[in-house]
């Protein structure tokens, strides 16, 4: 039972990440490889505040989101001027830079030694210690992320994002300041990813940079793409499939030592197969084939 709850908590955390990335890549057509970096920013900010200054969990989450939004401007203002694949390379660059900072800024992050002993969240008088409590919290966060992205995409703001995805020049011709819309979408996406990070840090109670590599970014992208970009159900399904499928491997008796590799091989091949036979994903509407 505990194990099952654990799986659902992980699914909820990845749902936040996938839904937040969908705002960017499904709704606005910009694939970002930096999502794990914002995930890391949230995790590190709230973890450091909690461990060093005993800041409470809600404040830590807000701080993490704020930091992610500020950094997202640094990332997006230069790189969102770029087109498709150049944007991906630029976000890849930021992902690598941030990873390198987390790994090498020993005074702040303790580098590869990581941050142990992150306190479990306490929200007002609710002490979250059991798996069930945590699942409720994670589900609440996921619903919040889902709701934010849903509201945004069904608003006039979302329609401009769709217009940018379909034809940016056309959106500009209609007098939309497309850069502003893209930067806003990127900031919201970063903030949501950061909230997932805070959640992860306080759940596992230990973080180190290896949880936030570019492979993690590729995994999040795969969830969005395999589930189906541009439809809100897609990322949810993608997160569920890509978290539970490798777990199923445990039951066929695969040793843990190779499970991580096999997991990545599975999502890598799924990504290739989807691109070849169903580029819009399982339930997606949008196939990146403009």
């Amino acid at each position, binding site marked *: 039972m505990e194990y099952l709850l654990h799986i659902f908590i992980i699914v909820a955390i990845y749902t936040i990440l996938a839904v937040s990335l969908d705002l960017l890549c499904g709704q606005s057509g910009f694939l970002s490889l930096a999502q794990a970096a914002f995930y890391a920013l949230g995790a590190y900010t709230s973890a450091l505040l909690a461990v060093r200054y005993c800041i409470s969990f809600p404040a830590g989450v807000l701080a993490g989101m704020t930091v992610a939004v500020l950094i997202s401007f640094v990332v997006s203002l230069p790189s969102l001027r*770029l087109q498709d*694949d150049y944007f991906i390379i630029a976000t890849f*660059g930021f992902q690598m*830079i941030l990873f390198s900072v987390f790994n090498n800024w020993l005074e702040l992050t303790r580098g590869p030694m990581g941050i142990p002993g992150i306190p479990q969240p306490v929200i007002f008088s609710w002490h979250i210690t059991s798996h069930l409590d945590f699942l409720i919290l994670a589900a609440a966060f996921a619903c919040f992320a889902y709701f934010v992205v849903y509201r945004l995409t069904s608003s006039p703001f979302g329609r401009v994002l769709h217009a940018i995805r379909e034809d940016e020049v056309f959106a*500009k011709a209609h007098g939309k300041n497309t850069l502003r819309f893209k930067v806003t979408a990127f900031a919201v996406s970063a903030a949501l990813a950061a909230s997932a990070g805070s959640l992860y840090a306080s759940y596992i109670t230990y973080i180190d940079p290896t949880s936030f590599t570019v492979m993690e970014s590729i995994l999040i992208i795969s969830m969005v793409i395999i589930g189906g970009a541009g439809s809100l159900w897609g990322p949810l399904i993608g997160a569920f499939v890509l978290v539970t499928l490798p777990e199923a491997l445990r039951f066929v008796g695969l040793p843990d030592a190779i499970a991580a590799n*096999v997991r990545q091989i599975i999502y*890598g091949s799924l990504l*290739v197969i989807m*691109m070849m036979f169903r580029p819009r994903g399982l339930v997606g509407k949008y196939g990146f084939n403009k």
Partner: protein
Amino acid sequence: MNQILLNGLVLGVYYALIALSVSVIYTPTRFFHFAHGAVFTSAAYCCLACRSALGLPFWLAALLGVAAAGLLGMGLEFGVYRQLRKSRSNALVMLLASLGLYVVLQNAISLTFGDDTKSLSGQEVAEGIQFLGGKITPIQLWILFGSAASIVLVLALFKFTGFGKTMRAVASDSNLARIQGIKVDSVILAAFALGSVLVGLAAVLHAGDVGVTPTMGLNAMIGGAVAMILGGVGNHFGAVVGGILLGFAQQLVAWEFGNQWQDTTVFLILIVFLVLRPQGLFGTVFKKAAA
């Protein structure tokens, strides 16, 4: 200081070779072939396997590694990318597929060989040779001259032969090339073969110098892509210059701030270039959103 410049030169020529290989594939296909990094790693590991399992001499193992890289590159193009082009996939779909391929190949390698760094030379550490006022190991000398020779050869191939001309034709406009009776798919296959052989060469030389790890390819591929963007996309000579500059920049930063910031340098340079001069040093093609 001489030593740093010499190290920069060796690293620069290595990057130049990778940048050229990335450029050879990117210019006719117009998408970032991330799995190129996995081709790099595969070549290095093939070389390692030939050395340790079959006990072949280094030069023969290296040759087999390079050949394996060429075959793998062609296989990827034939098995995946060609099918994607048939269904008129755009650059993003191709890029995503190549990311998937990269993930699969890298993990297959770490499953087979393990995650640790393995040394390939097998011999005792060779003593440095005095060269241009600094010390250099024999394998670094090989990197320097082997890479430089192949770069010159490939640049000449593109400039002076009919084959190079068809390559350039496909790169500048594949539809027009098709109208002229050029078999575009064959040319792209050849580009994959050539690019993969070049990156394989860089891989085995690098492996001989510092050993192999399953994740080595991604950094190499990204270094090459950054160097290509620096030099100017579509210009092979520019890619080579970009690679050499990148090598020097990395060594200078490593000397000034420490080794751990080398990757950061690469990406800071990339972002500065993407923002200020997206067409690169020698490029003419803008890839900016219409302003």
